[in-house]
């Protein structure tokens, strides 16, 4: 039964974890945690039609907890956030812009990060995100605006990303 459930939803869960955790080395741990969480709480699911969406929601909540745990751990260890200054200021290729984007996304709050990736990396609509996050459309739009502003503020301080956006404007 557990194996059947895994086979049916492993692609969906793997994709969400892979993208939202930015291809993290602990990917398999998070996937396993998400499936165990689903297995222990599936009895509480009343509507079988809602299963696919429920799977995504549980996965996203597991990822959110993992990101939050890491942030707390970082605070406990007295670490500073990833700096906004570019380490490869002279690089101007889009590859570096992608790396810098990942760097900035790492510094976002869990909610901002999830909405940013779902919206801009996965290309979800706000309606789809609202369903996945189990909240209202207005809330998602508000978060969407906030995470975009957060990203653009940090990107403006980054020479690689600033140059990338400038080149995009020229095109």
């Amino acid at each position: 039964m557990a194996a059947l459930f895994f086979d049916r939803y492993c692609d969906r869960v793997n994709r969400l974890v892979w993208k939202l955790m930015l291809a993290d080395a602990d990917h398999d741990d998070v996937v396993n945690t998400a499936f165990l969480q689903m297995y222990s709480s599936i009895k509480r699911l009343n509507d079988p039609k809602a299963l696919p969406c429920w799977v995504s929601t549980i996965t996203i909540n597991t990822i959110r907890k993992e990101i939050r745990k890491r942030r707390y751990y970082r605070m406990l260890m007295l670490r500073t956030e990833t700096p906004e200054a570019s380490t490869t200021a002279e690089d101007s290729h889009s590859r570096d812009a992608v790396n810098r984007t990942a760097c900035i996304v790492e510094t976002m709050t869990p909610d901002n990060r999830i909405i940013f990736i779902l919206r801009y990396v996965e290309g979800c609509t706000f309606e789809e995100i609202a369903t996945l996050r189990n909240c209202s459309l207005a809330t998602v739009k508000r978060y969407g605006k906030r995470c975009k502003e957060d990203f653009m503020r940090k990107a403006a301080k980054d020479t690689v990303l600033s140059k990338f956006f400038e080149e995009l404007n020229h095109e």
Partner: protein
Amino acid sequence: MNDSALIQLGQALSRRMGEGPGADRTASQRLRFQTSIPRPRSRRIFLIPAAAALTLLLAGGLLSWHLLQDRTMPFVIEPGSIAGTEGQWVSAATDRESVIRFSTGSIFTLKQDSAARIISSNQEQVILDLNNGSIHCDVHHQNRTQWLVRAGTWRIAVTGTRFTVTWTSAQNTLNVRVEQGTVIVSGDGLTPDGMKLKQGDHLRVSNNRAILSHDAVAVSNSSAAGRRKDSDRPETAAFVLDEAIDKPASRPSTRSSAGTIATPPAAKTQMIWKQKYEQRDYSGALSAARQEGLARLIRTLDVDELWQLAQAARYARDGEAAKEILIGLRSRFPGSPRAGSALFLLGRVAMEIENDHSSARQWFEQYLHTAPHGNLAEEALGRLMDIHVKAGNAEAARQHARTYLSRYPDGSFAGMARSTLQ
């Protein structure tokens, strides 16, 4: 700033990350999930307060311990000597290496066109994740710091030795060649405790199969090099991570006795087209390539350089040249990952530069046939659907839309697929 720029950046990030783990890895996830399902147990409520108290005590102790002492291991990133922090991504440009220099004297040199991330850097443990490309590591052991390099699902624990690791993400293949001392390799296809390799051992792990062989030549060579090195620095470990497993023999990654990467042949670096490519003067690069002889370059360049030349032609919007180079790349390196990507790029060239949707369709179909679950499969399928929509082939478009949604329900073309099906 409108959303399209961010979406473009997001899609590039998505492509960089790829589609996630393959079938082998999901099979091991499945097994792990099945074995980790908790069995019903009797409730031991009395244990909860005791566990909570113990946890609080431990957390308090840990917090005060960390407050009392700074256990970070500082490092700087060059060029620029910028102070780095844990969690930091570091990338090297196509024309230059980036160096991560730790306070203990250890030096990690990120080779051209590579990216890595420092997961942790403290007195107990330094963990580095190689995202792609190659890294040369020169580790100086001090105190009890554990140095760990992760490549894909494998972990290489540095126990004070010198060895070479090669990891190809596309083929999920690991090669470890020990030159001096011992290392412990753990991960997919190996025993849970890991595999201990000695001097001269060569381990290759692919598709959950491990093959161990012994290289006598490497032993004798490395022993000599090791003696030279040991006389200078008794506690030095150095190793190379190199993604380019499929690189042709004409351009090997060689290592000098001092443990550094040898520079490529000077003649290659002096190629004018390449200089112009690196300066992002793509039209100039293509003109220079024509002056040097495009046909000759197609016959002689290695796979990465051919890829760059094809990109230069594409950016210069010269569809004919781009096609010629990409077809040349495919015929000379048919088994390389670039050959598969070249099919997708040929489709883009036909679609975006030559406006030849019929050829573009054939290229995308060929790509999907050869790599149905490749990194670019989602984009190829989405573009194929787009071509059919534009050509007015409603039935074919709907068929591709259904396939797309079944495989990528949350993909970037999902909106278009849904509207096609309506």
